[in-house]
Structure formats: structure tokens, C-alpha cells
């Protein structure tokens, strides 16, 4: 191990950010949007008075929350081709790329965590508001869409964003599928040039700066929301 070689970072910046970081951010974005969507549906199911809706949702959330994300990544990597075959009715497992597989994984995994946040958000809205909505002649979906969810989202924005920062960090685990996300790109160059020290410290620094800045933004947002209420 010789001296620090910062040149290796400079030479690979294009690859690291154009390929790696783009993948990481795309995956984070899609998984967050899908996760919040399915998470909200799961939360509504869990709060439903119909047992056949609340029981499966509860079971799903508890299952996802009790196994490690890495195991879920492996599960879906092998399950998604079979699910694909089942959906399309083909007799052979469908070939699914690592990207699709990781998007599905993170969306469904994060949905369980987002659903817990949304459940708390929905429960923070006084029940009388739902009754008021129903009394005004709105149906369940209208009440949810016009009255409950907008307020629930607003109350929960800081926590949803914090969870998204965690998601951003967790996407680094796609490393186990040999995908070129930001860490995967850094690791490939580190192995190729034998520059583990520089590349991993640089990767840590980049993750730190992004996550830290975002978390500071969330803190500010939290203060603003807290003042208005």
C-alpha cells in the first residue's frame, strides 16, 4: 500500500456518478414512490374493520419487518421470475433483470415500513373527521382522499423523508447482486485498480454528505411544520 492516490477518484468520477449514483438515485426514487403508494394501501387495509383485509396486511407487514433486507433481496431475486411466469401464464420462469428485481424488492420491502408510518399518520387524524366526511355524504374513498390522507401525509412528511434517507442508504445492499449502484461502481474500481482505501473512504464520504444534508433539510422542515400546527 503506497501513498494515497486521489487521482483514481478523479479519473473515475464520471463512471461513479453517471452510472453508479444515477442507478442508486433512480432505485431510491422509484422504490420510495412505490413504497409510499403500497404502504398507504397496506395501512388502510390494516385499519379496515374487515378481518379479511386487515389480517393479511398485518401478516405481510410483520413478516417483512422480521427478516433482514438481504434475505428479502435474495428471496425476490429468485421469486420474481416465478411470479412473472405466474402472471404471464408461461411455463418457464420469466427472465428478469437485476434492476427490475431490485426495484420490486425495495418497493415491496419498504412498503411494510412506510405502512407503519402511514398507519400512525392516519390514526393521528381524529375519528370524528371520518364521521363528518361520511355524514356529508362522501363515500369511504372520497373521505380518505379528500380529508384523511392529505392531513396524514402532511403530519408524516418528516418521518417519510427520514425513512427515504434510510432507503437511500439501504440501496447499497444491491451490491450482493453485483449491480453497479454507487457502491458497486466504487467497489469495481477499487478491485480493478487495487485502490480499496481511497474508493471506500470516498464512497463513505459521498453517502455521508448526501444523507447528512438531507437529514438537516428534514429537521428544518420538521420545525416549520411544527410551528404552523
Amino acid at each position, binding site marked *: 500500500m503506497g501513498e494515497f492516490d486521489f487521482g483514481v477518484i478523479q479519473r473515475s468520477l464520471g463512471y461513479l456518478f453517471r452510472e453508479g449514483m444515477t442507478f442508486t438515485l433512480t432505485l431510491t426514487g422509484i422504490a420510495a414512490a412505490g413504497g409510499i403508494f403500497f404502504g398507504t394501501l397496506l395501512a388502510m387495509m390494516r385499519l379496515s374493520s374487515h378481518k379479511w383485509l386487515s389480517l393479511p396486511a398485518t401478516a405481510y407487514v410483520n413478516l417483512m419487518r422480521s427478516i433482514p433486507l438481504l*434475505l428479502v433481496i435474495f428471496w425476490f431475486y429468485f421469486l420474481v421470475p416465478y411470479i412473472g411466469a405466474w402472471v404471464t401464464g408461461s411455463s418457464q420462469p420469466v427472465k428478469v433483470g437485476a434492476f427490475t428485481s431490485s426495484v420490486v424488492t425495495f418497493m415491496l420491502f419498504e412498503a411494510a415500513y412506510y405502512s407503519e408510518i402511514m398507519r400512525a399518520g392516519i390514526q393521528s387524524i381524529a375519528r370524528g373527521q371520518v364521521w363528518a366526511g361520511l355524514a356529508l355524504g362522501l363515500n369511504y374513498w372520497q373521505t380518505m382522499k379528500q380529508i384523511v390522507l392529505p392531513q396524514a401525509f402532511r403530519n408524516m412528511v418528516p418521518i417519510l423523508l427520514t425513512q427515504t434517507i434510510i432507503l437511500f442508504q439501504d440501496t447499497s*445492499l444491491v451490491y450482493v447482486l453485483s449491480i453497479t449502484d454507487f457502491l458497486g461502481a466504487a467497489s469495481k474500481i477499487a478491485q480493478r485498480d487495487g485502490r480499496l482505501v481511497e474508493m*471506500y473512504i470516498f464512497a463513505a464520504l459521498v*453517502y*455521508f454528505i448526501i444523507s447528512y444534508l438531507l437529514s438537516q433539510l428534514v429537521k428544518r422542515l420538521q420545525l416549520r411544520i411544527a410551528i404552523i400546527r
Partner: protein
Amino acid sequence: MNYNWNWGIFWEMSADGRHTWFMTLIMGLGWTLATAFCAGIIAFILGSFIGVVRTMPIKWAVRIGNAYVELFRNIPLLVQLFIWFFVLPELLPTSLGNSIKQMNPPWASFVPAVIGLGLFTAARVAEQVRAGIQALARGQGMAGTALGLTLAQTYRSVLLPMAFRIIMPPLTSETMNLIKNTSVALTIGLIELTAAARSMQEFTFQVFEAFTAATVIYIVVNLIAVNLMRWLERRIAVPGFIGPAVGGGGH
């Protein structure tokens, strides 16, 4: 769809030729629990210390404590493990670095995994401990001072006993997180439960059997850990104050 189910696979000889696949998974579980236990001890001691420091009336100490938490919370665990595993031996003096690299197989990944997970989880414990202490009425600390206790005595006899009881529920979920997070150590070569299931899948192609077994084991371990923590919570609850066993009244 054609998939050959074979639940008997667990009793067949594994790739190492000495244990069945069932035993391979159990040994993986052993490493998962050992890693979580050792890292948990580091996390609890260091996290409590940093959490306390962050509530002390000493500005520079608070700042260092906050910096620690921000540093370890904002870097992905996987990257942290890589730094302990790949980077640290290179930065140490050559002889020490080499002796670390030459450790025997399980220890070469186990030690960095324990250090990495321990320091990572410590940041999360510190956050809980700080929140627990700050949840107490401010008057409690002042009352301690008024009674003539030193700062250390106030923490030891007044603040911490209550703060730790308050944060038992979040500490329970941190324990769960720690057990799940040990799976990340497979990236630095520790054959814990997820890695054992993965190797079983790679050698036998019995994907669903291997991962189902690992999933069931994780769920059982989780249930046991949750119930142990709940039991501990009830055991140490102060009657009439807080805790799940106490209904109504209290503070």
C-alpha cells in the same frame, strides 16, 4: 411451472462433507447470534455513554457526541463494514495490519463485523438514551443537584434508572434491528444465517426450501427476543410509574 420440491434436503450432507444442511443453517444461526450479542454489548455500553454525554451541561462534549451519532448514522452499514474490513488494516502500521489480515477465517470477518455493527448500533442507542433522559422532567436533575448530589451521582441514581426504563420499547426494536443487520456481515465473508441459506441454495438449487428455513428461523428468533425484552421490561418496571403492566394512574 416446474420446480422440484425436496424438503428432505435438510438432512442431506452439505458441501463441507461433515454436516447436514440443517446443521449448516444452525451454525449460521450461531454466528448470527454471537455477532449480535457481542456487537450488542459494545453498542449498549458505548451508546449509553455517548447518549449521556449528549445531555450533559458541557458544550464541547455534547458536540462530540452529536458528531459521533451523525457520522455513524449517515453512512450505510455496508460501507462501514467495508471500511473496518478492507480499509482499517491498510491504515494501521504494516505489521499490525498484516497480523489482522492473517487472522483465521471466521475471526477475520467476525471481529470487523462485531466492531462495525457495535459502533453503528451505538449511534442508534445513543439517540434513544438521549431521548430517554430528555423525556424526564427537567426538575429531576435539578432536584438531584439541590440534594447535594454531584453530576455523576445525579445521573447514576436519579436520571439513568428512569431513562433506561422509558426506552425499553425502542431498545427492543433496536435489538431486532441488530439481529437482522448481522446479515450484512455476509458481504465481508461471515457465514451467518443468511449466508448459510445462500450457500445451501447455490449448492443444491433448492431455493425455496433454503430461504423458507432461514425466514422461519429469523421469525422464531425475533419472537423469542421480543418476549425476552418484554419480560425484562416487566421485571424492571417501577410499580405505579411506567410500563406495560401498569394500567392507569402513574405519571
